[in-house]
């Protein structure tokens, strides 16, 4: 049996997201900014940031990125990853992109996302926001905005639950 432990409550998750939105507002050139959420939970997270900022009259475009086709383990993966649709309705050329993901771990997902994004156009800059940074990077990638640093063992897993998909907000630490 896997052991699950709630390490961040719903209330805290909400607070962290609001704080991240505030940081983004303070530290970026909002006129040129566009959000891109990485499937799956990065999308809901990016949509929440978009909502919070919209209430402060800041309207940001939002794109959805599925990185499956750019993964570096497709030729060796034992399990076949399911491909979902990428939806980016705006031109990336010259934009400042804020890439949004739930958990930053090895950095391989972000590597794939960067390769995919530059195939869509040439943004002026790309920054990274992660709700959780859990360490154990395998590539030289660091977030520009971090919600919470949770140093977990590499055998443990960290799962973010969001109300839009899972019914409630929380962050779980799962023992193998």
């Amino acid at each position, binding site marked *: 049996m896997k052991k699950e432990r709630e390490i961040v409550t719903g209330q805290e998750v909400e607070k962290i997201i609001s704080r991240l939105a505030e940081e983004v507002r303070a530290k970026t050139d909002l006129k040129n900014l566009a959000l891109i959420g990485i499937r799956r939970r990065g999308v809901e997270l990016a949509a929440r940031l978009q909502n919070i900022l919209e209430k402060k009259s800041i309207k940001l475009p939002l794109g959805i990125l599925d990185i499956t*086709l750019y993964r570096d383990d*497709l*030729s060796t993966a034992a399990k076949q990853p399911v491909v979902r*649709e*990428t939806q980016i309705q705006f031109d990336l050329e010259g934009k400042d992109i804020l890439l949004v993901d739930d958990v930053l771990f090895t950095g391989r997902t972000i590597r794939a996302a960067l390769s*995919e994004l530059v195939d869509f156009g040439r943004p002026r800059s790309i920054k990274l926001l992660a709700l959780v940074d859990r360490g154990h990077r395998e590539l030289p990638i660091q977030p520009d905005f971090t919600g919470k640093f949770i140093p977990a063992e590499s055998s443990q897993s960290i799962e973010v639950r969001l109300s839009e998909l899972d019914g409630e907000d929380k962050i779980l630490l799962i023992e193998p």
Partner: protein
Amino acid sequence: MNSWKRKDLLGLEELSAEEIEFILTTAASFKEVSTREIKKVPALRGKTIANLFFEPSTRTRTSFELAAKRLSADIVNFSPSASSLVKGETVLDTGENLEAMKMDCFIVRHSCAGVVEFLAKRLKASFINAGDGSHEHPTQGLLDIFTIKEKKGGIKGLNVTILGDIRHSRVARSNLWGLLKLGARVTLCGPPTLIPPGIEATGARVTYDLKKALKDADAVNVLRIQVERQKENYFPSPREYSRQYQINAETIRWAKPDVLIMHPGPMNRGLEISSEAAECSNSVILTQVENGVAVRMAVLYLLLVGK
């Protein structure tokens, strides 16, 4: 269902409704890739695919070639006129020779039913049937069903009419199996000589009367009349065929107002379909071609990723 288990795609008859739905859902994700400015993703980098067409084809071969290239696979075209087959090599020897060059996948079209299955059982690579005799042409069936689903929102409960030379058509068979499994009501229509006896056993309805076949139809798939078969006297003359079975501005009124007009190509304008019908707002013939690339990308991805 969230992963594909089979090595090959030989036909829709052997697939479950769940497997067909899984291919269609995956194809919907791939459709977006062809709308990008850089229409290429690295998913199948390093995979080698052979297009092995023992029968002529432009559309299907090109569609597969584009699908493979948009996934970054390497694809080689092998056509029999330029090959050792004319020198007497057997089909199996040809396959084994190509496999010795480390092919990951073969896309095969052959005039004999069962040839693709024969090869698939003997070689390790994945096989995609691109049409074997009058047996099956699964990717055409899938792209037709994908197009209907995309336009109508679903398949279950729809009335789909397949019209023309059912007897010789692998497209008709793949459509028939796929549509029935997904819960459509299928009507087959054409001259009695071109409808195989006993096909009602599949669950399809058969009628020789176009007006009855089109009543309440949500989609009509107009098959190509192979003029070369005229020698075999399946119908008196092309003129006679057109008079009874052509889809045109007048006959299309017998179907629902939002009926989809489909054709797998190449069309004989003025024979099985009038230019007016082929170009009217109900026609989704070019959408079928567009969707063909997405469906073939999905099939290649599912067969070649994750071993």
